[in-house]
């Protein structure tokens, strides 16, 4: 069996304050309360504020989460923070709407002529300009008000109040092809394509060398006859020029990226494929999800970015890329129970005992890394801290650390949450650039990725799910 490694990673954000009103929560609450809508629109961040926000720089891989400054992060000056940084970039909304048009093969997005031209000019200067079909942008020019007034269309704004176009539905009788759904799907496609483009560009990877792409984003594309039919992965492969690749989507709520990584490693290890990419785009429904708590606490609307990520899995050979320890994979069995302790026992403790590694043998535990500055104002607490306390408590129970060492264990092997609340992005995937850097440089020997997904949200089971895997420094 071939040893699989992660040879490259990328991480991108798209700052989309204008799209935030189309998040699931704002989309329901704002239309019935004009005063609330005005407060929401008045609390949107500028692009400069989004770039300066320290958790965003951590997400891009510039700052390790353990080196983030003391909170509040929202007022950080962001000295030296840049758009192009670390393992990717933070793209402004003007360009992202243009990118959505450039990857739109069905005239779903209509942008006004002035915006299409401005976005085209900006994207032509982008390092990935040659990888996207910018001619589609030139064809996108319409009258924004007319487009927004079309039956079933969803208006698109740049920031708070500049109407720049509309998203169209694709079938008047098919809810799976309504404008709102297609907006979600196209934004996921564009952000995943941006992440994959950066992966190829920054690591000089030949697009034709990739055999297969696994999609791990949250949206399930399809039509009324097959709502979750898929396959966004292949759509993303196509726009990124992966002419020899096929692909498939992996669905498992927020946990999907880690099972996708394990599947990618397994496909390489078994010799089925030589190079497999895992990609994930961002989630429009989760924009502004906790905005009410932010407004109550005089904070800006902090869920105004879409996350994207990509990684390449291939056979070991360069002597430095971190290994995917397939023998460490742990799954949350049906019979394991649903308490957080049971889940952590199954995903964290069991595989480490099985391998004889021990809980102190892991340098970094990457679990649900939601940014607490986003979750606490809405009453959801500090999710990563709760998970790290549980992991540390189990280390005490196992006799690996003393009770008084819990805080030190959490500080040293855990980290503050830094990911936007785009579920799958926060569920360990956000740590990949850091894990790759630290395992490649030798700063860390082992990183455990731990992902959880809330299956019960789909109302077909009361279960949740999860998977973990160890990444290890190359021999």
């Amino acid at each position, binding site marked *: 069996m071939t040893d699989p490694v992660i040879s490259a990673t990328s991480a991108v954000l798209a700052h989309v304050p204008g799209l935030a009103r189309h998040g699931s929560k704002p989309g329901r609450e704002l239309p019935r309360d004009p005063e609330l809508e005005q407060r929401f629109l008045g609390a949107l961040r500028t692009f400069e504020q989004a770039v300066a926000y320290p958790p965003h720089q951590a997400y891009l891989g510039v700052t390790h989460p353990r080196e983030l400054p003391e909170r509040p992060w929202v007022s950080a000056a962001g000295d030296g923070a840049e758009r192009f940084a670390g393992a990717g970039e933070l793209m402004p909304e003007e360009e992202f709407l243009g990118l959505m048009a450039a990857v739109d093969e069905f005239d779903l997005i209509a942008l006004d002529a002035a915006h299409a031209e401005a976005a085209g000019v900006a994207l032509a200067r982008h390092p990935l300009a040659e990888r996207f079909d910018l001619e589609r942008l030139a064809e996108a020019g319409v009258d924004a008000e007319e487009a927004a007034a079309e039956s079933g269309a969803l208006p698109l704004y740049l920031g708070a109040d500049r109407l720049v176009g509309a998203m169209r539905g694709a079938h008047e009788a098919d809810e799976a092809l309504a404008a709102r759904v297609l907006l979600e799907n196209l934004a996921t496609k564009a952000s995943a394509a941006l992440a994959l483009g950066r992966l190829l560009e920054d690591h000089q990877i030949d697009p034709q060398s990739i055999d297969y792409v696994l999609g791990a984003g949250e949206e399930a594309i399809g039509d009324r006859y097959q709502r979750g039919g898929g396959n966004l992965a292949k759509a993303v492969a196509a726009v990124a020029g992966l002419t020899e690749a096929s692909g498939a989507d992996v669905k498992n709520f927020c946990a999907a990226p880690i099972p996708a990584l394990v599947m990618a490693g397994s496909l390489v290890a078994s010799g089925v494929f030589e190079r497999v990419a895992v990609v994930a785009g961002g989630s429009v429904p989760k924009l502004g999800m906790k905005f009410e708590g932010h407004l109550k606490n005089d904070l800006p609307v902090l869920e105004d970015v879409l996350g994207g990520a990509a990684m390449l899995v291939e056979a070991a050979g360069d002597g430095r890329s971190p290994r995917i320890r397939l023998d460490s994979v742990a799954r949350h069995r049906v019979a394991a129970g649903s308490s*957080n302790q049971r889940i952590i026992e199954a995903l964290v403790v069991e595989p480490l005992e099985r391998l004889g590694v021990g809980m102190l043998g892991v340098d970094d535990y990457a679990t*649900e890394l939601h940014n607490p500055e986003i979750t606490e104002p809405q009453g*959801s607490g500090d*999710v990563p801290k*709760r998970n790290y306390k549980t992991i540390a408590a189990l280390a005490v129970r196992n006799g690996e650390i003393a009770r008084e060492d819990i805080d030190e264990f959490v500080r040293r092997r855990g980290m503050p949450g830094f990911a936007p609340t785009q579920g799958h992005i926060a569920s360990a995937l956000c740590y990949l650039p850091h894990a790759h850097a630290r395992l490649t440089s030798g700063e860390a020997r082992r990183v455990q990725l731990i992902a959880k997904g809330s299956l*019960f949200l789909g109302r077909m089971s009361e279960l*949740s799910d999860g998977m973990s895997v160890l990444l290890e420094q190359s021999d």
Partner: protein
Amino acid sequence: MFEGKQVVALGERDGIAGPAIVKCIESAGGDVVFSSTECFV
């Protein structure tokens, strides 16, 4: 301490799950009329 009381138990995936709350409430004499485990992220 919950005798004669009806309880709605809302658990959380990353905290205390609904079934665990139900066990506690029932052992304290309460009547759980609804329980659920939700995800708040």
